[in-house]
């Protein structure tokens, strides 16, 4: 466990892909079976024990620490496992003695006053124990292991048992590190992977040249996806509209739906994220529909009553861990397909888009499932025409689905499907957001990796008050800025604090001194929850305007006019949302 914890610790801090690979390969090289195999399973998310609930971890720490100090510490660190790993008290000699007696009755009792801490468990012991351990035994066992580990070991163990092993390593990268043990191609491992199981001794033996290739071909393997570049204003002059087809850019999750037949005739289907993470478990309702034999590229959406829902709605489903029947009924998953990479046994990557699309249309039609449909093409003849469609999707065939559209995609008709982000073939053209210049009023420390930064901002606009103009808070934003801008804002906040309310600082905001943000947002609606009476959708910091005196920032009237315009023409870009549609954390990119 110590060696695995040290690996996780280094990986968590290592930004470079190649250095990560080197550390993992080094670990796999020096660590014996079965320990390394369980590590590979942990890194690829292939472990299948029942995870400990955060509530259990909280109970364990509550039995050992002052609740006030725990609350302050958790607030500061922002991560439960890390807080507990750091705060976990050294076991008292009596506790050690009784634990040693309880857990290993055959080990013999130690002399009083000379009790060593329990030995650090191996990763294999942890994984194998967790697979069979009864729920009631878990707390004691976990506490015993924690007693035997140091801060890093405890952190790694808690991440592992709670299933929160987020260290910036994809399953594919871990497999690549294994491949580097020998002269193996990662795709070869991908093909075998579904037929393998922890601790993967046959895989290591094959990669290291000590045994034959394990027998297992995956009929539903992941294909690295093709990605688009953002289009710039200057790009259009160099592009001929006739070379391109256009589709809506759907505001869902990019997925790959792959299905096929095993040699024994069994049908297998999987749903992958664009990074190759297996999402199948989260979408059983969609998985059942993937009865074809092929690999589809598309967008996962929530569709209710034939209407595509906004990303906010999809987010609500993603936030739930368990897929209950109620959840599946309330948030029906839908696949909107736009490409076909494999059709039966035939690999289509090299075909031009138009041919792949024709094959896709045929496959979707044959499937005949309302939950799987074709992403429509947008008719256009020149860039101005497409710009109009992009500004008003409702009027160009998208209808009520417009709310789930975040722009248009341009794809060269003759483009082959090239994994990665090849230049010049696919372009994304997002919709313009609304923009106002607002004044920073309050700042709050972030959570997680931003726990030491003032990264959550409340901003305001001017309105007439009893004693002249005053700022009224209109929204909060916590992203949109670069790391460097975050440092600048953080510094500004610390140097211009006028009041502190717990984790919140009030920042100087007067007509001549303060910080102006250009705030971009996607939509606007009336809200009774906000003092200003309006709620912005998905606000984020566009630019820092250190150059602009706060007195010249926008007024609340500007926002109200935007709202009125949006209400007057609901089909315009200012999509009017239910007051219940809350902005939430968004997917990356």
């Amino acid at each position: 466990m110590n060696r695995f914890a040290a690996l996780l610790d280094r990986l968590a801090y290592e930004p470079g892909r190649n250095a990560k690979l080197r550390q993992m390969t080094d670990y796999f090289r020096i660590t014996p079976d079965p320990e390394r195999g369980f590590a590979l399973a942990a890194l690829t998310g292939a472990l299948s024990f029942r995870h400990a609930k955060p509530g259990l971890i909280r109970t364990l720490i509550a039995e050992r620490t002052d609740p006030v100090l725990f609350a302050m510490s958790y607030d500061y660190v922002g991560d439960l496992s890390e807080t507990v790993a750091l705060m976990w008290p050294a076991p008292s000699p009596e506790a050690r003695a009784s634990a040693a007696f309880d857990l290993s009755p055959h080990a013999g009792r130690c002399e009083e006053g000379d009790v060593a801490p329990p030995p650090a468990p191996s990763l294999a012991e942890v994984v194998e124990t967790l697979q069979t351990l009864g729920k009631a035994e878990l707390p004691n066992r976990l506490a015993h292991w924690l007693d035997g580990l140091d801060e890093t070991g405890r952190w790694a163990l808690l991440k592992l048992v709670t299933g929160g092993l987020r260290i910036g390593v994809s399953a594919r990268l871990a497999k690549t590190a294994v491949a580097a043990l020998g002269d193996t191609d990662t795709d070869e491992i991908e093909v075998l992977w579904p037929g393998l199981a922890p601790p993967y001794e046959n895989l290591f033996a094959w990669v290291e040249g000590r045994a034959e290739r394990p027998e297992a071909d995956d009929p539903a393997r992941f294909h690295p996806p093709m990605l688009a570049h953002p289009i710039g204003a200057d790009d259009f002059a160099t592009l001929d509209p006739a070379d391109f087809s256009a589709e809506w850019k759907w505001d869902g999750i990019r997925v790959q739906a792959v299905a096929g037949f095993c040699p024994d005739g069994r049908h297998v289907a999987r749903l992958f994220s664009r990074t190759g993470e297996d999402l199948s478990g989260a979408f059983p309702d969609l998985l059942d529909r993937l009865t074809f034999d092929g690999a589809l590229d598309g967008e996962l959406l929530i569709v209710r009553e034939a209407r595509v829902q906004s990303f906010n709605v999809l987010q609500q489903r993603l936030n739930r861990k368990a897929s209950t029947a109620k959840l599946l009924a309330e948030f029906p998953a839908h696949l909107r397909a736009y490409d076909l990479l494999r059709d039966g046994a035939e690999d289509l990557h090299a075909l031009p888009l138009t041919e792949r699309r024709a094959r896709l249309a045929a496959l979707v039609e044959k499937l005949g499932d309302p939950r799987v449909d074709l992403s429509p093409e947008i008719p256009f003849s020149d860039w101005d025409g497409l710009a109009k469609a992009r500004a008003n999707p409702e009027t160009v065939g998208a209808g009520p689905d417009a709310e789930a559209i975040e722009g248009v995609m341009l794809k060269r008709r003759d483009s082959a499907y090239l994994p990665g982000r090849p230049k010049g073939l696919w372009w994304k053209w997002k919709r313009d957001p609304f923009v106002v210049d607002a004044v920073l009023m309050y700042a709050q420390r972030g959570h997680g990796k931003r726990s030491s930064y003032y990264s959550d901002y409340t901003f305001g606009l001017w309105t007439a008050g009893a004693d002249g103009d005053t700022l009224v808070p209109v929204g909060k934003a916590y992203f949109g800025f670069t790391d460097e801008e975050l440092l600048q804002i953080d510094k500004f906040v610390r140097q211009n604090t006028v009041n502190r309310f717990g984790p919140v600082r009030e920042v100087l905001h007067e007509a001549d001194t303060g910080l102006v943000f250009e705030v971009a947002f996607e939509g606007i609606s009336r809200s009774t929850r906000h003092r200003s009476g309006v709620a912005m959708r998905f606000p984020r910091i566009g630019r820092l305007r250190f150059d602009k005196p706060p007195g010249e920032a926008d007024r609340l009237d500007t926002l109200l006019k935007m709202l009125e315009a949006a209400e007057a023409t609901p089909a315009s870009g200012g999509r009017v949302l239910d007051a219940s549609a809350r902005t939430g954390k968004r997917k990356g990119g």
Partner: protein
Amino acid sequence: MRPDELLCPTPAGLCCPSGNFFVDPRRAVETALITHAHSDHARPGHGAVLATRETLDLMRLRYGENFAGRTQAVAYGETLTIGDVRVCFFPSGHVLGAAQILVEKAGLRIVASGDYKDVPDPTCTPFEPVRCHVFITEATFGLPVFRHGDAAAEVQKLVHSQNLFPERTHLVGAYTLGKAQRLIAMLRAAGHDAPIFLHGAMEAITGYYAGKMDLGDLRPVRDATKADLVGAIVLCPPSALGDRWTRRFSDPIACFASGWMRIRARARQRGIELPLVISDHCDWDGLLRVIPATGASEVWVTHGAEEALVHWCGTKGLRAKPLHLVGYGEEEEIEVLAASTEAATNTPAEGSGA
């Protein structure tokens, strides 16, 4: 006499009206007693400065000959009388020359401890607990999650990483005064005999330390060739990490020696690849050892996570209050945050050497 009549917090810092002096004032005052030379405690421009010989020397290195109207060197254990107040300096174990200051009048004893740590440091005189009625403590790491562990084991991590990546320069961010020299001394104790290279901003202070103890072969980065720096350990102010200055090194690994490195978010956010949890402040366990050892029945908490420490004191039946002195530790935090954007040519505003 009430304790807050003997020493009271003012916007300029802790003031002793009976002796007409301030402890670590943030603004220029007539008479300043200074615990140690970090810039958030030691400001230039006071009429008179009373501090240890080392603190005065270090202030002179920082601010030049005329950093104060006049100075008076005070030895550890020496007792002075200022007005009708008795004052005595005791080692605080924080950095070279760092002191706790005992202020005593009419039987009432208050210790202003400045910044301190009670764990071994080869570069300074060990901390001594001083019996007092009121103990004024920092709380830079005043949360139970701050457990610095064994500093020697952290140094081993650096040595191990150097073995693992022998072709990469290990660029170690460390506070210019105190941390850098402690790290050098610990690397030497761990058997690292190779030359250690120094950023320009560290040369003068490290030179001063080297006049008082053996720090081995130290060389300025500016005189080194590219080949010298391959696989070398290079010390720089934290603000130089990630700066253009680092481009001269071969595939550098960014390391940072600080108590803040205990919190993963802090290390990650700064792009630190090898965090080294080494601090010149007490960790939580250290604070909990020191406070009872002073015998104080009342604790004033100056800067850091005051709330948690005040709460803990309450659970132990000690009267405690936060002093809300503005400005201590703050610069350091900003320096930590700003490190990746600031130019290395600016000598960084140095904080209290966390």
